[in-house]
């Protein structure tokens, strides 16, 4: 009789302790671990997101700058056509060769001197006269342009916030 009672009490205490371990202590420890991990990854993500925002803003600023000067390429094409040059266009890049007057050459250099978004990849121009032997002559000089390659700077619209 006494043995049964003690046995019963021991079983009850065993169940109680086991339930505390399985339903209270272990879940608490697991929760602490998860909370620390989640707090850490949340902080890391916040930093990553801020960095993404900074990069994205900077990229958008460049995109705005390029957009604000977007007519430069068309103006260059117009200058070239105005002086009877026939540029070969491919999207926002062009190649052209030909002879131009000193005035046209000066205007072309002026366009380059005001261009914020034009990449001159190749430009080879030489005076068709031998200088300075003929400077005193009234004859107007011409410039021989070979392989002028110009590209307008482009940005990826998908990456810009515009």
């Amino acid at each position, binding site marked *: *009789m006494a043995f*049964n009672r003690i046995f*019963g009490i021991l079983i*009850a205490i065993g*169940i*109680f302790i086991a*339930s*505390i371990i399985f*339903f*209270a202590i272990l*879940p608490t420890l697991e*929760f602490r671990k*998860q*909370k620390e*991990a*989640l*707090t850490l*990854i*949340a*902080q*890391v*993500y*916040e930093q*990553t*997101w801020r*960095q*993404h925002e900074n*990069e*994205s803003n*900077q*990229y958008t600023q*460049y995109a705005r*700058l*390029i957009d604000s000067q977007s007519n430069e390429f068309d103006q260059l094409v117009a200058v070239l056509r105005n002086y009877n040059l026939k540029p070969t266009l491919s999207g926002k890049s062009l190649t052209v060769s030909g002879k131009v007057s000193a005035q046209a*050459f000066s205007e072309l*250099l002026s366009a*380059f*001197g*005001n*261009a*914020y*978004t*034009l*990449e*001159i*990849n*190749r*430009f*080879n*121009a*030489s*005076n068709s006269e031998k*200088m*300075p032997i003929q*400077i005193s002559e009234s004859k107007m000089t011409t*410039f021989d342009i070979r392989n002028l390659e110009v590209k307008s*700077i482009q*940005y*990826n619209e998908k*990456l810009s916030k515009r």
Partner: protein
Amino acid sequence: MININLYKNKKPKLKITTILFLVAILLLPVLGYRITLTTLKNNEMQKIRLANPQSGVVLRETPISDYDDSIRLLTLKDEETKTQISILQNERRNLERALVYAMITRKFFKAVDASYHKHSQEERVFVESIQIERKSKIEIDFFDIQLKAGNTQFLFFQDVLSSIDRIIGNTRNQSQQIGFVELSALKAKITVDTSKF
């Protein structure tokens, strides 16, 4: 008064209902703690979401008490964002390089133009050739001729060289003074190294 035990010979039985009842009573505090823990989890999750608003936006997609899924989702989103940053950085560097190169060519021609206009009264400049090669150089060959006899100061050359050197840097120059009728002339070449752009 005499105490008589009427159940003296009755064999004690442990009923199943009694066992279940006892077990239930023993489990009650533990179950209570479980409920407390769940509430605690929800509160902590709210705190994490409030302290990290962007993470909070991402975590709206998962149940509030699901820590494992939340951690998995945030890790995935973090990786995705890092990949996007890497793409953005590459694109930005390319844009910067292109814009800096465009600025160099612009300033080069601006400097030539400004110096030319500044000294057009005293000197005459004849461009012999201009050469631009991306990732290599910008080069101008020219004659700088004094309009006054006996004057040996080549202001255009000095001015354009110092401007280009100051604004862009990486310049080399070659010059040779030659006599031209009664005037003195300078045959010069200015090269800007653009290999880094």
